[in-house]
């Protein structure tokens, strides 16, 4: 059974030549970028927007290893905010067994966790991993 997770639907990402991108929106009037896609621009109120690819690489802005969470998650797991060159910051989990460092270059990748299905298996979610590892 498919578990619906916001920001991870078919309109929210694209694969292109083995590389994973997030798909956000860019305001046609003021160029502000949003993820997930936003109909009305939060900066200028324009309702004209176009899709924009984010990634596949970005810079790790900050992180935390989460040890206590709600029962839908397998702890511990590492959350990060990643700054993409398209001028937008997105919350993305980091793949397991990597020591996070502020400023490290990361790339988008599918990986299991931290969210659990009802049967206890891990959901496949968009993560980041260090570049060139």
């Amino acid at each position: 059974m498919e578990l619906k997770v916001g920001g991870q639907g078919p309109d929210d990402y694209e694969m292109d030549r083995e590389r994973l991108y997030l798909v956000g929106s860019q305001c046609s009037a003021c160029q502000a970028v949003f993820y997930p896609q936003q109909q009305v621009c939060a900066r200028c109120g324009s309702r004209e927007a176009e899709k924009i690819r984010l990634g596949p690489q970005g810079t790790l802005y900050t992180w935390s290893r989460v040890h206590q969470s709600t029962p839908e998650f397998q702890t511990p797991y590492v959350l990060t905010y990643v700054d993409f060159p398209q001028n937008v910051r997105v919350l993305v989990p980091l793949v397991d067994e990597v020591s996070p460092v502020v400023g490290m270059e990361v790339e988008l990748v599918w990986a299991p966790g931290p969210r659990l299905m009802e049967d206890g298996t891990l959901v496949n979610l968009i993560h980041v991993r260090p570049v060139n590892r």
Partner: protein
Amino acid sequence: MNDVYVVGVGMTPFGKHPDRSAADLAAEAILGALDDAGLRTVDIEAAWVGHVYQGMAMGQRGLGAAGISGLPITNVENACSSGSTAIYEAATALKAGAYDIVLALGVELLSTKFRGALAPDESDIEAQIGLTMPSVYAMRARRHMEQYGTTPRMLAAIASKNKFNASLNPLAQFKKPVTVDEVMAGRLIAEPLHLHECAPVSDGAAAVILVSGKKLSQLGSSRAIRLVASALRSGKLEVGLPDMTVEDLTWRTAEAAYQQAGLGPDDVQMAEVHDCFSIAEATRIEGLKLYPLGEYPARVERGEAGLGGRLPVNMSGGLLGKGHPLGATGVAQVIEIVKQLRGEAKDRQVPGAKVGLAHCRGGKARGVEGTACTVNILTI
């Protein structure tokens, strides 16, 4: 516009009250505030009631338990700022001349509803991939450490200070002081934050009675404290790559309050701020411009924010020590300032305090820095 004064305060002990109802807690706080003011239930002309998780018509149930009904009652939900938003709404009505004696109440019974980390609303996509409230603040702490050289021990010192202050407050949830080493030895909740650096799950209620200047001259209360500013703002949708250590929402709210009061950060002699996590006290204090950006945690380690320090912060114990029954928190902060300015804070009294500030902000919704923020400034 009319002046606004606090003439009565009342609150329950904060802590775990699983055997009591929210209405029962509310009634205790309301009756305490009435007794403190020397007023009767029938004197209250209107009431605003802040809570987050108490369901429909909490205000009517709470006031009803105190024997008050029939008057205009407004229930207010604004995340952790629900109680302080009730004060803001009550003060706004008094300023406009709509009433002369009003009640602001905050109440929350959480211990029977929640365990563990509170998460943002489940419909929030960030919550769906694992964002919890502690992790939101943990990631801010990481940036504060990167940018200003803040250390985990400095953050632990904030928690230790507030737990000590709580040991001087008979209404606080935590009774025992906790050393910096004990904070550091605690379980990690979201790195770098340990258990003692996260506000507990709490129950409690707090109430204040506000009157117009005109009514005050009739009542002649000598213990009245003036509410010189009450400001409310909400978080702006974030665009681009903002600096996560800068509390724009706190500053915009404070700026409005300072302006109303005709005062500035240098005039503030003590503050109660929303320390839902140790790092939060730092970014609030810096957002209020009571210290330059990045400097506060090191100053706490040197003792500047404790009793007898340059600027005592969270003398009540704060959320970390006194407890955090969401809706009641913002009202209890104002109560602490009132007690301090009256000179009734006993063991934790800040000598000679004439100007105090209460800051409350809370919640997390996707794309905004914070949901709601209030700043109340009180003077003798």
